């Protein structure tokens, strides 16, 4: 991999980690999800600094080209994250529904 490209990606990953810490500080992202994303970024950082790891593992698994493995992993990972997102949204919807129902019943009982 070209050195300039590697430096660019490293800077991008560092900016990623920095912005995650910033949104955690602003309480726009919970610690739990911050950990997910930070882990992903740091993992990618390691792979960019030591590209040999990717080549080695891809060879071991029988990929013709090392990037193919990265794409496959990335797609699976994104699928997984989006799926988790849907689960979280569904849970929130249920909680939200419960809150609206209980609050509305309470408001009615109060009026009596």
């Amino acid at each position: 991999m070209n050195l300039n490209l590697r430096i660019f990606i490293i800077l991008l990953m560092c900016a990623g980690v920095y912005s995650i810490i910033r949104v955690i500080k602003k309480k726009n992202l919970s610690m739990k999800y911050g950990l997910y994303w930070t882990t992903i970024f740091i993992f990618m950082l390691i792979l960019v600094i030591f590209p040999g790891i990717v080549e080695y593992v891809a060879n071991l698994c029988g990929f013709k080209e090392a990037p193919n493995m990265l794409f496959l992993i990335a797609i699976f990972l994104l699928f997984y994250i989006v799926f988790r997102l849907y689960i979280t949204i569904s849970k929130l919807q249920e909680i939200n529904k419960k809150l609206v129902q209980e609050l509305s019943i309470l408001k009615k009982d109060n009026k009596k």
Partner: protein
Amino acid sequence: MKVLVIIPAYNESENIVNTINDIEKNCQNKTYQLDYLIINDGSTDKTKEICVENNFNVINLVNNLGIGGAVQTGYIYADKNDYDIAIQFDGDSQHDASYINDLVMPIINGDVKMTIGSRYIDNLSEFKSTKIRQLGIKILSMVLKLTTKEKIYDVTSGFRAVDQDIIKLFASDYPNDYPEPETLVKVIKNGYEVKEIPVKMRERKYGKSSITPIKSIYYMAKVTYAMIVRSIIERGNK
């Protein structure tokens, strides 16, 4: 015996007064206590004001929840206030309150746990919905037969009565959208008996149905999927 009529209402300002008059007219001379409760599902029209003006018994949901969440609020209320029977009754003047007694009596007599007001048995109802909708209902009725082995014709009817056990069941878990056929699977899979009662239904006077032609394909897919999944996850409850 305490019976609660649950009336979900979303933007029904033109129909709600007629609906309540219809119910109050049929409240008298009953051997049981019949109350009604409107669930105003965050209407954007004057439904709330009209209910307050007329001193109707109403719960105003602080946010729009959709039909499932609104009806479930009624079941939660019925459960909290120890009602023996809950009846679902649409606020759009489609249903006829004179049939409430027909739906309640089989439950009071202990014959079944749930009754459904049906357009498709005994030919009582002249209004049967459009041809295409009847086909959709027929298909869903087949899906119900396949998943539960029970034959019920009017699976989408929103005119239904349930006893205390099913009130509790619905209060704890109720589908959010297009709940009618799915709840039938749930009730039957939990081992309760359901009976169809012939009723007359009217065409709605004002406003339009919530299911547009474009949505109908999604409706069929969602409901069929929900019924199949429901029949799998409720299997162990019998």
